[in-house]
């Protein structure tokens, strides 16, 4: 009987912790999304600023992005999905190995605002990965909660 009681106690404690964990995850996830929104917005504004200051047509435009017929190059940033979650893997720029600097498509001496915009957008990618991880953890926590609630120990 005491064994059963202690188990019940442990299960209750566990469920409480799971709930608290869920709340934490919800908050973190929201915070992450808010950050993502802010970064993205400021990156877009910086990009617009670049175009505004340097005369849109010859500074940053979609026409400068390589097309299918351009020389091939490797991606600088990869998404790696492992057991601990999604992570972002970045490569250093190395022309001999095919890792080109994308900024140089637009100009040899990129303006400061464009550089800042790039760093903001890079942050965005990281935040997306973080948000994905949090979301997965949240799903796991919710899963556990439903499972644990079903167990008869709590009734």
């Amino acid at each position, binding site marked *: 009987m005491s064994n059963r009681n202690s188990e019940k106690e442990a299960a*209750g404690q566990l*469920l409480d912790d799971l709930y608290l964990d869920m709340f934490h*995850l919800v*908050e973190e996830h929201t915070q992450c999304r808010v950050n993502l*929104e802010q970064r993205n917005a400021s990156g877009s504004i910086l990009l617009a600023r670049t175009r505004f200051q340097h005369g*849109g047509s010859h500074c940053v435009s979609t026409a400068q992005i390589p097309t299918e017929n351009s020389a091939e190059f490797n991606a600088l940033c990869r998404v790696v999905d492992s057991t601990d979650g999604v992570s972002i893997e970045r490569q250093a720029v190395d022309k001999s190995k095919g890792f080109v600097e994308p900024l140089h498509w637009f100009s040899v001496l990129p303006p400061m605002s464009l550089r800042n915009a790039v760093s903001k957008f890079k942050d965005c990618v990281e935040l997306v990965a973080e948000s994905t991880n949090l979301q997965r953890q949240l799903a796991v926590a919710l899963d*556990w909660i439903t499972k644990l*609630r079903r167990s008869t120990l709590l009734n």
Partner: protein
Amino acid sequence: MISQVGRGGVFENYLQIVDNQVLASLPELYKVPLRILDHRVFVNGEIEAFLENFEVRRNDSEVEKLFQVTETVGSLRYDLSRCSATGSGSGSGTENLAQLDTEVNHLLDGVNALLAKAKVERTASTQLQEARLAHTMLKSTIVDTRVRLVPSKKLFDFLDAQKEHFQEVPENVAKIMKQKDHTLPIHIKIIKDVGLVYKRPKIDYDLLKKLTENLADTTKESTKDQPEPDSEVKDSDEEESPKKVKHFLYLSDLHWLSNKLAELRRQDHCQVFLHQLIESCDLLLPENEMKPRNPELEARCQRLRAEQHNRDYLKMTKNVDAGLKHYPEDTISYQIKSLNKQIIAVVQFIFSVAAGFTFGFFGVNLMVGPLPFGFRILLGVIVALIIALAEMYFLAKKLHEYDEVLDAPKRKPQPSAPAKRKADTPPAEGRSVQTVKPHAD
């Protein structure tokens, strides 16, 4: 001969009249190519006409037809009733007529009902309403990312019952209790949870797995307690009523409550778990606030968009419209302006190079001491060259920009420019648009 002269005179007269007319309507005539070519105005007009036809006239015609039907049926009924009144004497015919009469009455009722239905203004679908709302309202960022919990009655009762056992209470909980007229004993300290940061609880996954292992067989046995997985996470459907509640429990309060409950359980005051308490509470997830769009901003955006479109359009049709063909380049002010800018840029260049040379020639001499003349000249030239190189880059950039700016619109049309531009934006006010000053850095 005379007749020919006469004819010629008539013809000349006619020409004169036409000329006069043409002269009188010259300003109008001037606009003709613009009007013919201004496809935007044309398209907008077409759209408006179409919408009008579709929405207004169609609706009207439908209602009109229905009225016609009502009239016909009404007159038919009148005729019938008169018929039945006159023919009431003759036996079997009246029965048929009476039957017909009731049927026509039914028909009339049906038509009236239809008419009433048609007159009722149809409400827009939810999708359309949402789209309209999104047009006028703006989703703002989430300000408060905290999870909020609306405390339930059960929770209050529990807090009230157990308050003797608390030594300290977070400020927020104390506030909520006070609001609900639950007084706290005096000896309870109120903690201000400003600097307190709670970490995520460590979850013993091994224990969790162990506990849920026997779950598989227990669920089969106990089918009577149906799990309700959604009961704890309340959706935002029930937002309206809790929104009025001013006080919520935040995460730190829940942490405190959880710790306190563990303590109470240890001291055998009660056997209540947190999840049992918060089961009945409403969970409020952080949400975006809807803000109305600033009407001034909206008006300004529309004006700017219209200007932009006009500029693009004028650039596009510049070589078609003879009046605009040489428009900005041929005016004196335009030429002087561009000349001025280029002269200023060049003078700046020369001046800075000269200043650099002076520094190398005199400045270094003054600082270091007497230097040979040849060396001073060399120094001056070197400094001037360095400055010239740097300046050259900016000069080239600037001059290139002038070329670009003056005969082309400054900004490219945005590919993502929303197409929601209202159809009633003022049509091209062409002349004033081209004179918009290019931006100098």
